[in-house]
């Protein structure tokens, strides 16, 4: 389980997170929602070690994450898919996937892991030798999701996976996400501006406003609360 307690982050005089606390359960998707500048991306970057907080704690399955470097956190089974489809454009599709296998698979097992993930994303199979820079937005998102899943993460942090994608592609991605995480022991934290789409695949929802948690509840409860949705989520 992911436990975030009183997490506070500032960039100079700007307070990005103010005593943020919430839990994310294994086997469930926790949606982190909120407007632009609410602190959603900063929250994920702090969990994965890219941003150092000035206060509070983050622990995963009892192990403290704050104070560890990014690489060590990744090797604990934390896969962070950053905003903006973080493919490495200069590498091929297969090299992007292979990179994620290097720390967690033996040499002989790597190709099998890549082939297995390409079964999940068959669209990428024909592109394995192509540079990631030539992929469309949806294909890039499939690649980063595949790259995150290939290491069989225990904690998956997804930052705006639907950003800039057509609704049909977003729906496909969300269905894939649900398919790949349902019934498994993965803890998923999904940051989204597309609240409707995020709530449809989540069990829990956390709403951030100006760096503070204003709501932390069941996703179904948030989705059913018209006033809450209208006030914080804009639909």
């Amino acid at each position, binding site marked *: 389980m992911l436990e975030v307690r009183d997490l506070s982050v500032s960039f100079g005089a700007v307070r990005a997170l103010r005593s943020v606390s919430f839990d994310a359960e294994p086997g469930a998707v926790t949606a982190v929602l909120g407007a632009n500048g609410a602190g959603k991306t900063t929250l994920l970057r702090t969990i994965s070690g890219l941003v150092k907080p000035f206060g509070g704690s983050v622990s995963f399955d009892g192990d403290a994450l704050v104070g560890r470097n990014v690489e060590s956190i990744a090797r604990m089974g934390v896969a962070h898919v950053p905003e903006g489809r973080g493919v490495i454009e200069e*590498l091929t599709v297969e090299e992007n996937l292979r990179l994620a296998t290097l720390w967690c698979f033996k040499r002989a097992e790597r190709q099998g892991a890549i082939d297995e993930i390409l079964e999940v994303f068959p669209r990428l199979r024909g592109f394995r030798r192509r540079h990631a820079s030539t992929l469309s937005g949806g294909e890039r998102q499939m690649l980063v999701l595949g790259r995150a899943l290939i290491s069989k993460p225990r904690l998956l942090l997804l930052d705006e996976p639907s950003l800039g994608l057509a609704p049909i592609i977003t729906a496909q991605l969300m269905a894939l996400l649900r398919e790949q995480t349902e019934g498994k022991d993965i803890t998923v934290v999904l940051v989204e501006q597309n609240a409707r789409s995020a709530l449809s695949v989540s069990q829990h929802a956390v709403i951030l406003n100006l760096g503070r948690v204003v709501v932390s509840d069941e996703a179904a409860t948030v989705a059913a609360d018209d006033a809450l949705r209208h006030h914080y989520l804009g639909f």
Partner: protein
Amino acid sequence: MPCATTTSGSSAVTLFLNYTLDGIANGMIYATLALALVLIYRATRIINFAQGAAGMLTTFIAFSLLSRGWGYWWAFIVVLAIGFALGAVTERLLIRPLHGKSELNPVIVTIGLLVVFEGLAGAIYGNASRGFPAAFSQRGLRVGHTAIAFSHFDVFILIAVLVLMAGTLVLFRFTALGLRMRATAFSREIARLLGVRVGPLLTLGWGLAGIAGSLAGLLVAPTSAFGPYYMDLILVYGFTAAVIGGLESPVGALVGGLISGLCISYVGGYLGSGLEPLGALALLMVALMARPEGIFARPPARRV
């Protein structure tokens, strides 16, 4: 008269061939230094102005070892190892602590190192030029009855640089370590998020650049006025080669080195050796105007 014309034409062709061969041999050396600059630039976005001077310093160490009776090849291997260590230590102690600060800071550090290395060599060995032994004969090979401007030592240069380039290519293309290094060079943050420990890879990159710089120093020394400043102009030519090739591509470094070597050789041969630096400058200007990103730079990503 026809006979005279033939002789004159034949000597012009021979001259052209000699300038070409000379350009290829020198171009390989520029490619080596360009490779050193590329290895560091693509990993850390820093132009290492001290690369030539570091090669000079390690070549002076080779000079000391040879003066003490060491065999050439032992000195050669030890100096490449020292080049690696010098590059690695520079990254770990002087460049790494500047990460995240102004981009100008590491550049200033490399300029400072250039001055320190040249001052150190001058203080220990003096500023006078001296000779440096070559691994093989520098007498031109003969093709039939004609001596050409390509010696056994030039053949050695060609092989040594091609081995270095091939080794770099194999490392980057076919090994997990190379994949990690490329990922770190292209996107350090993503590489870290995928569990790649980037610190040791940056050190390794600077170390490999140190080997390439030391090799360039050893290859240039026998054919130049070996002293504390003999690598300064080679650094300029190597930088020109790296820019032509695209600053991020090892293959580009090789091609850029050959283009630079040939152009500079033709300028020196036909117009006078004093104009070689101007030839390099003109080449750099043309390259920057025609293709600022370099020949082997990847075109901007297509957004769909």
